[in-house]
């Protein structure tokens, strides 16, 4: 009987990819005060059939989502050039555009690669900033579009674009009668091409990326107890890393990919451990006998970890060397601070800051010892920083439902990623993908 119920749990677990119907959409709620005016002229297509993706439309949406650009609507353009000889700077100056991107795509025969040519212009200086030729498979036009967005964004802002990255997130449903449904999903950073990589009737939590972006780790309760798993994205092969009595929680891959920080309560209280992934050897760091220690994260240099502990009464952020030793408290402002995520340049931490009775996403500047609150909603959690350090994806509640949202690390740009139906939470933004 018991075996049968275990098998039933197994049967409901699907580790292969299933296309999800509920894709995330996007609505910008706040941009910067004086966004740079940019135009992306629709890319021309010469070849057999119709293209499955609107390349210039994807690029426009990417740049718009950064909040730094005022993107021109196609209908407002006086002309829609796709080749350098038909670009007239005067027209675009009259329209107040500072930059213009044009492009064209050609393919000789069905089934052959698509040749893409694109040019980025500085309208005021009358100068070409980028002129490139790329070859792409017809099926990877979305990847190609994000790649062009990355290059254009870098040229215009000096920050590497993170439009080609992906994200993990969890969806949950309360079915009633003590039944629940959980799903781990992977999608492009803009919410497109979402697919489920794990489904279960028991909770799935704390998804995180390996530094090479090829694997993910998470906590799954599928055996009716929490266990940490690692899973390859290609093929879905996975391995159970820990299954100790008590908590097995909050995995975090070291920057070199060789170790994993995690939380285990096998000694009675939740403590931070580092596992050597090759030998599976565990080392406890920064632990306190009675306190809750959780949410370890590696600092970008891999030399220390930050984590949450309630050793002083309420949750606060602490730091400890990866080799162990003395623990240093980092947060002082607010009622509590938790779930820190380092900014890639090491300048600060993004965390959940409790101010009176509300939970906001905040940035702790480590040099100035100053906390800057970035969001104004009440139940913000699970911050995840983009690979280029410019944006933070997080989970919040809208009309009682969990949704994903994003804010720039200076708090100036905000957008929501509303989804249909289910509760969406725990976004984890991928590293740069090769």
């Amino acid at each position, binding site marked *: 009987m018991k075996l049968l119920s275990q098998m039933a749990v197994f049967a409901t677990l699907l580790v292969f990819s299933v296309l999800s119907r509920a894709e995330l959409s996007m609505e910008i709620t706040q941009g910067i005060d004086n966004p740079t005016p940019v135009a992306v002229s629709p890319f021309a297509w010469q070849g057999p059939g119709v293209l499955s993706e609107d390349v210039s439309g994807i690029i426009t949406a990417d740049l718009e989502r950064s909040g730094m650009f005022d993107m021109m609507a196609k209908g407002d353009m006086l002309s829609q050039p796709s080749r350098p000889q038909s670009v007239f700077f005067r027209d675009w100056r009259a329209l107040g555009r500072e930059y213009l991107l044009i492009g064209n795509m050609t393919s000789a025969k069905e089934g052959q690669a698509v040749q893409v040519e694109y040019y980025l212009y500085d309208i005021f200086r009358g100068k070409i900033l980028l002129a490139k030729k790329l070859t792409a498979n017809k099926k990877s036009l979305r990847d190609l579009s994000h790649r062009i967005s990355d290059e254009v964004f870098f040229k215009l802002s000096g920050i590497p674009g993170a439009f080609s990255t992906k994200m993990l997130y969890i969806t949950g449903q309360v079915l009633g009668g003590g039944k*629940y449904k959980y799903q781990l999903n992977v999608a492009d950073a803009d919410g497109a091409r979402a697919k489920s990589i794990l489904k279960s009737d028991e909770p799935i*939590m704390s998804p995180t990326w390996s530094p090479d972006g090829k694997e993910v780790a998470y906590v799954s309760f599928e055996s009716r107890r929490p266990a940490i798993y690692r899973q390859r994205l290609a093929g879905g092969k996975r391995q159970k890393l820990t299954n100790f009595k008590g908590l097995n*929680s909050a995995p975090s891959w070291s920057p070199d990919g060789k170790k994993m920080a995690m939380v285990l*309560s096998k000694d009675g209280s939740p403590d931070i451990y580092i596992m050597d992934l090759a030998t599976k050897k565990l080392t406890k760091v920064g632990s306190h006998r009675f306190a809750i220690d959780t949410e370890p994260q590696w600092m970008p240099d891999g030399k220390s970890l930050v984590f949450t502990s*309630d050793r002083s009464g309420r949750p606060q952020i602490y730091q400890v060397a990866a080799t162990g030793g003395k623990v240093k408290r980092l947060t002082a402002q607010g009622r509590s601070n938790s779930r820190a995520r380092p900014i890639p340049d090491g300048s600060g931490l993004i965390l959940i800051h409790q101010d009176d009775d509300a939970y906001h996403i905040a940035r702790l500047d480590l040099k100035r010892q100053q906390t800057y609150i970035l969001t104004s909603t009440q139940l913000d959690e699970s911050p995840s920083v983009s690979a280029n350090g410019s944006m933070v994806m997080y989970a919040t509640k809208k009309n009682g439902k969990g949704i994903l949202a994003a804010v720039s690390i200076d708090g100036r740009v905000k957008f929501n990623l509303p989804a249909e139906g289910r509760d969406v939470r725990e976004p984890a933004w991928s590293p740069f993908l090769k």
Partner: protein
Amino acid sequence: MLNKLKFLSLIFASVLMVACGSTDQKEDSSSTNGADDQTTDTAMVSGAGDGSDMEGSDLTAEVATGVDSLEQALTVYYFEFDQYSLSSETKSNLDIVATALKNSTATVRLEGHADERGSREYNLALSEKRAETVKKYLTIQGVAASQIETIGYGEEKPAVVGNHNQNRRVELVK
């Protein structure tokens, strides 16, 4: 109604069934009681998911001798925000539970939960602390530690979506 300690009746039923030589008594009792052949007042409990499908009025009647007082004990224990200490009401209910468990070989599972405020991983640890605190109290009363399994679910399995007070809880399930 939802929180009444009907399950303890089942523990006693289990004890009785051990005498009959069954090795599978727990599943037996759950399958006989989970079905639709129940009295209507217990069949449609609202969906809080506390294992109330274990309620079975027929079985309760069968083993009712001497356990009437246990009917008054609760199987869901509530906590203050970001706390895992037990209220005096919880303690007096646990005293009844402890007495029943000491006189049986039944095992129970303590499932800790948290409300949605604060980070998910912290809440997971907090909910496990809550379950562990209940376990510790029961073992101090003399219940064997081997009879109690604990787990924390954090904020992942809300009893009532958005209701903080009802979600900060430990549920005692068979």
